[in-house]
């Protein structure tokens, strides 16, 4: 898996720019960009509704779980998945080999509109992420003393 060394403020602004435009056009509520390991890369939209980290973990699992199903019909994997609810729905599509974009939307829009605009948004995100992966790691360090004090308390 190609790793993303670090997301700078500028990188996040670039990703958010693509997501903001996509959410406006598709009239969706929330979009989350994750890697296929379930880590959140960026998120934009109505974040108060749900725990994004849990959505990310489950979406990555859901995407991977259908890989075998895709293989049975001669596909490497499905490029997009749609989960339809009564009022809220989730649409997921591949951005590149390592990244997935999740869109949460309600009755104010349609899956067709979301699907239509998601293609352009995924291409825009893939460009941003490619540049990001090609960049040098800006470097980061903790002090040993800081780490020693970092305890998860129970």
């Amino acid at each position, binding site marked *: 898996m190609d790793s993303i060394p*670090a997301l700078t403020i500028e990188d996040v602004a670039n990703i958010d720019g693509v997501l903001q435009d996509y959410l406006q056009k598709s009239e969706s509520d929330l979009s989350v960009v994750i*890697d296929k390991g*379930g880590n959140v890369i960026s998120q934009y939209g109505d974040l108060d509704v749900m725990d994004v*980290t849990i959505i990310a973990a489950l979406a990555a699992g859901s995407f991977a*779980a259908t890989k075998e199903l895709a293989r049975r019909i001669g596909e490497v994997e499905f490029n997009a998945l749609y989960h339809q609810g009564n009022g809220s729905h989730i649409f997921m599509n591949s951005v590149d080999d390592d990244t997935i974009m999740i869109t949460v939307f309600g009755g104010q829009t349609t899956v067709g509109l979301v699907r239509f605009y998601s293609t352009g948004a995924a291409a825009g995100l893939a460009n941003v992420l490619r540049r990001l992966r090609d960049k040098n*790691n800006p470097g980061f360090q903790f002090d040993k003393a800081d780490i020693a004090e*970092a305890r998860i308390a*129970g």
Partner: protein
Amino acid sequence: MSIINYASKEIQFKIVYYGPALCGKTTNLAYIHSRINPENRGDLVSLATAADRTLFFDFLPLNAVVIKGFKTKFQLYTVPGQVIYNATRQLVLRSVDGIVFVADSQWEKMEENVESFRNLEENLAKQNISLDDIPCVLQYNKRDLPNVAPVNYLEFLLNNRKRRVQTYEVISSTGKNVFAALNAVAQLLLHKFSRDNDLAARPQTQPVAVPSRP
């Protein structure tokens, strides 16, 4: 694969609890969930069968400590222990940063422990990760049961490698040493993360050839 986000000042790490079926991986996460302040954790998500066997994975997000102004977020996963779910274990291990291997201390579970440990090595190798390179701690769980193997024997079976890892005698049902093991792996992966991202310490070019010893 940890991700540093300078905009939200967060770093995410993924820790996977690995081990044979019914060794107490889910019990570890349930205990951690019960003892962490709700402000610092999300819900414990379990994808289990009706008989409470883990089918896919359990997941618990923790907002841990702030270091140098960066909030560290740990995402704890378990794998399904049953042998047939190997594809799921490979999926959960994707972009893992640290491992807690949970061994069942009961005599009759030794073969399953060894099998699961080998399976962990194989599945990491498929991601080009060596167990020697990834932060890992060992839990010898269920130490309160009457039919447990001595720690020396477990060490011989599971911790007999060139690089020996930290081990903990754990009773996950009461929480004994559950946090000690979690903190140990968290410390190991924070040190590794800091080392890996220390540009000053990293050689700029790799040597073409290293002279052999005379």
